[in-house]
């Protein structure tokens, strides 16, 4: 089970080729800024992503996310190796 920074359907893409979701689906919208690394998805399917940009659309703000390679667990293992 994952506790994501921002809920998204990782299947979703738009014409940019990036995953997208709405800023108001973030646990802490202040963390969602271009360049930030976040965990996106839902409790069952999540991925580490980089925030690309934020754009107004519909009744909110769309966040574009670049899917980074690897699993969330890979990043956890990486951090554990790095910090001991």
């Amino acid at each position: 089970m994952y506790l994501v920074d921002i809920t998204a359907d990782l299947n979703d893409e738009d014409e940019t080729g990036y995953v997208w979701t709405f800023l108001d689906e973030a646990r802490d919208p202040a963390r969602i800024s271009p360049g930030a690394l976040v965990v996106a998805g839902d409790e069952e399917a999540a991925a580490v992503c980089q925030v690309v940009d934020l754009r107004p659309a519909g009744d909110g703000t769309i966040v574009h996310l670049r899917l980074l390679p690897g699993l969330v667990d890979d990043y956890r293992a990486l951090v554990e190796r790095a910090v001991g």
Partner: protein
Amino acid sequence: MPGDRIEQRPKLRAERPPASTTLVIRGGRDTPEKLRSHALRTARAWSLDGQPLLGISVFAVLDEPLADLLGRRFATFRTVYLPTVGRLDAYGFELLPTAQRPHFTVRLRSADDQELGRLLEALGAPGPNPAYPRRYG
């Protein structure tokens, strides 16, 4: 500052519909609640012919082998749905060529329980994703 919904009609790709035997991929394990949430998200952002577009995302297996597409785009999903275009069509779902090839949006007429239940039936049973790394069990 909020803006208008993004009209998809002029953005639809000009391409022939995929053959009925073409597989489409949807990653994850869906429930009616998840599908409703995803469809409503799409309708918040996108419109088609001026109306909110209810839909969910899938990818068609068109230009690269299934295994390559799964590995390139779906490796974070433990399970995937792999219905055919013909199966979705048989359940009455239209595929819109949205975003970049091979992405499509499965268009829904509503987000009620009946429609979402039909969509789940059309997707079929999820299967294990062979591209999901089993490093962590």
